């Protein structure tokens, strides 16, 4: 078998990359910490100003926010290192630090909705709020969590799959440029 290093392009330097085309701008978000929080997390999250949990359609403008990703689980993105360590945070609630395991891409701009429509049939630009809707979904074949931002969306993906998602975003931005 040939050396596949040539076939697969190197993993981007996430501190350097961004994508830009007419009407769309994609950046890598530098979140201070990301946590999995399971169980009855309301009180724990309320301490950090994230009492409300979000699905993929509710606009969330805060830098700390909690996305519903399973019936009893949220992905908590924080603008600070909020917990000391992974463990049982409170009776009936567990937390795990996955900050280094996640990357967050943020497509913004007037063409961002068009890009999102190429990844999933979900009505991303529909502002209807469904209280139990999960932010976790298949997008462009990748399993990731989506959150709505005032001028775009955020895609939260595990680091091992991030290079492939970035390549997908790159291909679509290049297609936009060609068009």
């Amino acid at each position, binding site marked *: 078998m040939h050396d*596949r290093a040539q076939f697969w392009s190197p993993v981007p330097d996430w501190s350097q990359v961004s994508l830009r085309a007419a009407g769309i701008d994609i950046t890598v978000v530098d979140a201070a910490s990301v946590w*999995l929080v399971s169980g009855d997390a309301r009180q724990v999250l309320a301490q950090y100003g994230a009492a409300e949990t979000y699905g993929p359609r509710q606009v969330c403008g805060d830098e700390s926010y909690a996305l519903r990703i399973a019936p009893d689980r949220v992905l908590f993105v924080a603008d600070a290192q909020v917990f000391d360590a992974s463990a049982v945070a409170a009776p009936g609630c*567990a937390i795990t630090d996955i900050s*280094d*395991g996640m990357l967050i891409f943020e497509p913004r701009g007037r063409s961002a909705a068009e890009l999102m429509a*190429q990844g999933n049939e979900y009505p991303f630009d529909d502002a209807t709020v469904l209280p139990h809707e999960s932010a976790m979904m298949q997008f462009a074949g990748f399993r990731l969590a989506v959150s709505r931002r005032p001028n775009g969306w955020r895609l939260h993906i595990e*680091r091992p*799959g991030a290079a492939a998602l970035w390549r997908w975003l790159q291909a679509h931005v290049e297609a936009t440029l060609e068009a």
Partner: protein
Amino acid sequence: MSGPIRVDVDGGSFGNEIDRRQRLDFTFDGQPLSGFAGDTVASALLANGVRIVGRSFKYHRPRGIFTAGGEEPNAIVDLRHAQRHDPNARATLEPLQQGMVIRSTHARGTAQRDTFSFLDRFSRFIPAGFYYKTLMWPRFRLYEGMIRALAGIGRVDATSRAPRSLQQFLNVDLCVIGGGPAGITAALAAADSGRDVLLVDDHAHLGGSLRWRNAQVDGLPGIDWATAREAQLHTAGVRIMVRTTAVGIYDHNAIVLVEKGCTPARSANGECLWQVRAQSIVLASGAIERPLLFENNDRPGVMLADAVLRYLRAYAVRCGERVVVATSNDSAYELASALNDVGACSAVVDSRDHSELADDARAAGIEVHLGDSIDSVLGRTRVERVRMASGATLEADLVAVSGGWTPLIHLYCHARGKPRWDESIGALVPGTDATALKVVGAASGARTLDETLEQATLAVGGTPSSESRPPSGSDYWGGTPNITVASGKRRVWVDLQHDVTTKDIELAVRENFASVEHLKRYTTLGMATDQGKTSNVNGLAILAAQTGRDIGAVGVTTFRPPFVPVSMATIAAGNLGELQAPVRRLAAENVHREEGAYFREYGDLLRPAWYGPDASAIARECHSARNGVAVFDASSLGKIDVIGPQAARLLDFIFYTRMSTLAPGRLRYGLALAESGAIFDDGVVLRIAPEHFVVSCSSGHVAAMVAHLEEWRQDRFDLAKVFIHDASAHWATLAISGPHSKRVVASLELGVPLDDEPLPHMAARIGTFGGHPARIARVSFTGERCYEISAPSQLAAGLWRLARASGAEPIGVEALGVLRAEKGYIFVGQDTDSETMPHDLGIGGPRDNRSSAYVGDRSLFTPFAKRKGRKQLVGIAAAGEQPIPIGAHAVARANGKLRSIGYVTSSCWSPALSRPVALGLVEDGRRRLGEVLQFEHLGTRFTGTLVESCFLDPAGARLHA
């Protein structure tokens, strides 16, 4: 090529689809031709007088364009345009574009001059199923190559690369499929009630048959009504997609659409794949005309009557100069009248004794033969004359046929609808309700336009107009197919695309292939790329007559997606190259690239196989691990947190070995079983704290292990007392192993003691690296003293560089595979199969001693689990210096025959032992230790002795070196 062809009267009722100001040049079989913007490839070919567009599948008979839609069985062409190459493009659906290069398919040479046309002379020797009977001796494979070379339609160009295409998604309240009167009405009514509506149609404009048939709707000519309604649809916010075919309906109202005619900038192959999710669906797909059965009804120049009318009115193409219209219903009289207007109608031959329209036709000067039918077409490669059942002959260059109508209910069947036979209109119509899908208009068997509009309005909850009138007496549908034609020695074609004749069906019935499913498979009726759209009902009628049943009792084969063929390039939708099957990447991948790593995909992971230009590096890497110190990137291993008061109980249930007895700071190897008792995965469990465990499972099984844990958590445990968190991506893990590993790890300054006493084998401590927590575990997959250091992923590159700077040599996956094979450590899935249980590996303790329940426990005591002859893991010492190939079968002679008694699962050259080592699963392998067995692999024989699976350091002294 000859003939007329464009009707010169511009505008008005002729040529409403084309723009004569915009000429488009293209070639067909190398000949330069031209058409107009708005033409389909088919209309442009007809306008240029091209009669033969391809050759038939089996007998290489000349074939011409037969229809004007997706049901086309003949006009499958090889199409190249810009970056696009479609070897099986349907000419009737393809919009003509400037510079298209079109070639006929399935012909040696050209469609006009096919060197394989002689095959037709041997047709009597090659009826349906002939190869089942005649190509069996001495064996079928002798003939297979020839058959494959002759079969198929278009040829894929192996040198061409699929161009980028586009995929888009959409979510709507209602998707209306079909832009004819029914679809327009339903879409408008739904939009008026505030619903988000998508309307799709596979033609260039809305209106359906109103664009080429005479009709009055709401006091307007049909085409004007459609144009006015289209404007209203836009105003109402309905999303309209034309040149878009719904190719499939799947679970939960998922609809797949293929949009054609996209600009190259938008989609290089001209197509876009849409995945639509709709809350409800209205299917207004209309109906297609059925052919008539007579001798040589496949000749170029025999066409469906509605298609001839459409080419005439919509594309201004007069398909013939002397046209005989043959019909069994009233719908074809409009064609006769239209042809008469342009001086091309020769006669109407109506198989019925009476028609209300016959007198009008005669009054207009059209010759009408009632109670007669076409017996045969005369002419070798084109229509020259027709002979009628009465014996009279008519001069003709085109026969336009209408044998009734077939509702297009394929998509209804995709949605799990079951059709029924409606004797009154002689057609299959929707039977049972399909979930969230309503069928309206001609697709449901509606008899009149008024009924169509009423159904469409009701389907979306609207109130129909009070102006609706009862059905008129017009016999539009035509009733049950007329199959009275006697075949005898004559050849009457039922399925044009797969060359199935009435004789083939009769033969199948004689040979007792009398079920509709058997008939389909024996004759291939309805199997081809047109899925029998024009042939199925006639085939069913013949089968019914042959077996003495009603058509309704014969049944129908299952219609499955796609409704029309979709190219693989369109399905791939630009997900080519790196996006075709994306792999997961290591956090430190770019550092491995700097080290000269040779990468391979292992499952969905891209990992260094070795470091160096070729595989000779593997032995050097093994030497480093055995005699010095090596560093391996094990970041892909699972790191699954199991947290909570019931965490220990859950892991006791999941693992074959109890984990609740682990002390904090200690690790234990464990096997996880499936309910069948077979080994599901293995891994190491670390207890960090009394209520916090970390499961480190195999790299390729992380997602499955998380799901396995979650499934049992939700099934048996208190959801508030145990939680599963997959933190695998957060942690990077480097395994530093070898006799000198302690020295290298000490240089990393992790803040934990590394000696055996404070940190013995299978123990772990929490230290720090770069100011962040790091886990240091004494666990080994090489058999050497080893420290696995897990740190946050972003520190992986720094940790790797530091270890290298301290003297650790890099090793890749291949060297690890050798090192672990020397020790007899297994890879689950490679050294186990779907039947391997723990006791087959010699791990029987928990099975014998555990009293508490665990996944798979009962399956370990079934007769199957206890039977003799189970395949057990053994080592295999190969004779000689050549490793026995992985997959080689251990063979034993029984009753004079060789039988496989097992196989080699892992095999390699051992640099440490200077000889090959192998692992295998062999029947009663433990009992056979010491036996010399023969191994067969692709005709080569090897010899090996069964030995213990651990080849190196069985006492494990090196773990503490």
